[in-house]
């Protein structure tokens, strides 16, 4: 099943399409340290793709390569069938790749609503002059995009804190607002960097439900990094396992679980 790129339908009835993003032989170095070594994998339309691995395996670096924050020394990134030239992060965002951060990166001085509205940057094109007069395109865009944003706010159940400055919110809600901001962009790929870090069991359950719902209702392709193995195995369609910057496993959760290299990396054997 994994070797074919034919669209298929999962057991719970979601449609998985062709390859949206393909990483080919990516190598990323920081000076003498090789963070990622010759890694290839792909992300298919509509799936939930997890990247797991022990601390320092290079997962976050991988996500940063996808979101354009790092440019790899070697290897190629293909997005929607086309090779992607080296890009600035904001250009990657303009292409429709949204992400959240391991350490929340919200705009603390702005209200929740304004934070989520910033997710609509790609869709709002009115010029400075129109905005200054608050007429025509600017006013229209503001209302139209507000409607989209309100749907996302409803969906993530954060209506009650709409006008609250983000700085005042507790951790769990901030995580949800950050997800809302990424979702508001209507991304073709959503990257989640440890969406459940530092959460208790209930919050994790909530977040898992949101991730599944997002994927199910909007058909959003999701790539996520997560440490909680139980969560990863439950949520994802396919898993990439990294260790020391190398890929040691790739496949469905069941395949990965029985992979000897993965078991070694997690349970620990002597590295020679």
């Amino acid at each position, binding site marked *: 099943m994994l070797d074919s790129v034919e669209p298929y339908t999962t057991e719970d009835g979601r449609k998985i399409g062709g390859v949206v993003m393909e990483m080919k032989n990516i190598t990323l170095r920081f000076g003498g340290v090789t963070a990622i070594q010759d890694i290839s994998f792909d992300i298919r339309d509509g799936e939930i793709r997890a990247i797991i691995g022990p601390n320092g395996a290079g997962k976050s670096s991988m996500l940063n390569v996808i*979101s354009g*924050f790092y440019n790899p020394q070697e290897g190629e990134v293909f997005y929607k069938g086309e090779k992607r030239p080296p890009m*600035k*992060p*904001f250009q990657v*965002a*303009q292409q429709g790749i*949204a*992400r959240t*951060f391991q350490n929340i*990166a*919200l*705009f*603390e*001085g*702005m209200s929740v609503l*304004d934070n989520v*509205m*910033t*997710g*609509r*940057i*790609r869709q*709002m094109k*009115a010029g*400075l002059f129109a*905005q*200054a*007069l*608050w007429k025509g395109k*600017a*006013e229209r*865009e*503001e*209302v139209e995009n*507000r*409607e989209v944003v*309100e749907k996302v706010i409803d969906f993530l159940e954060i209506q009650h804190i709409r006008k609250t400055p983000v700085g005042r919110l507790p951790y769990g809600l901030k995580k949800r607002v950050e997800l809302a*901001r*990424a979702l508001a*962009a209507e991304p073709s790929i959503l990257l989640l960097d440890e969406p459940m870090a530092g959460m208790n069991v209930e919050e994790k359950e909530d977040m898992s439900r949101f991730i599944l719902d997002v994927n199910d209702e909007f058909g959003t392709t999701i790539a996520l990094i997560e440490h909680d193995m139980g969560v990863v195995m439950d949520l994802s369609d396919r898993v990439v396992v990294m260790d020391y910057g190398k890929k040691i496993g790739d496949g469905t959760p069941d395949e990965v679980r029985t992979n000897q290299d993965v078991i070694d990396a997690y349970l620990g054997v002597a590295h020679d």
Partner: protein
Amino acid sequence: MFYREAGDFKTSYAEDSQTFPIKFDRYRYYAVLVIAFAVVPFVINDYWVNAVFLPFLIYAIAAIGLNILTGYCGQVSLGTGGFMAVGAYACYKLMTSFPEVSILIHVILAGGITAGVGVLFGLPSLRIKGFYLAVATLAAQFFLVWLFNRVPWFYNYSASGQISAPERTVLGVPVTGAETAPWAAYLVCLLFVTASALVARNLTRGMAGRKWMAIRDMDIAAEIIGVDPLKAKLSAFAVSSFFIGIAGALFFSVYLGAVEVGEAFGINKSFLVLFMVIIGGLGSIFGSFAGAAFLVLLPVFLKNLLVGGLGWPTDLAAHLEFIIVGALIIVFLVAEPHGLAQLWRVAKEKLRLWPFPH
């Protein structure tokens, strides 16, 4: 009772995102506008206009401009005085080169020219931040003042090196020059203040403002979600300088009438406007007005109190004035670092329920 929003429901997003979503605020704003436009011009005299209203209105425009750059976009600037000088000299050159064109258009064009200069001096902000950027804008301050002092073309080769505003009229009423009636000067400035505040408010509640605030709060995250830092920072510099240029043009043409650049637009001006923004409240249009009012009115008030009320000698009063204003600024920053705008916000929170807190 005094201040309530209960029952004030919104049924559309346009209504919810308007400038004053609460009915009470909206009516108060209309009331202030009516009084400012229809009542004040008939009752003010020369003293009030020159000591209080003109400086307050003009500094309010400059403070709005600096607030957009520093308060909304997080880029510290010490070049305000220099940019005001650009506005003043641009206005002067336009007034003397095209005497037939309306002064109102000249002032707006002067703002546009200042915006261009602001963008030029904003370029370093793409690589440097914080204190280092402040020092870079300080270079703009000194360079611009030097330029207007040294290149005679800017002051039309006048012997004194000063520029003085020729008489110009709006609808037949002189608004610059010696013949200007106090109410006419007041109305021109009020017109520009109102327009500036509206435009600034529209920009800051829309996507432009969100991009600026995103850069201010966390520039890396802003870039990741798709804000082009180059465009966002430079547009902030442009808009900010536009307002500051208008303020400079009015300061020269309507308020002072004749200007020597080092005196009128020196580094002191930059600090004064920066204090206004900090005391009024960073990232607040209301704060710009509050800060300008505070720093313009307080010295006038103290002078009247000490010299007029208590009969102290003028020089003693002048020294005391410095001490008191300085001390108040420090007290203020310690007690409420977010400025007068935050005090106002807190007061409104309390008044929502007053006098029945439960």
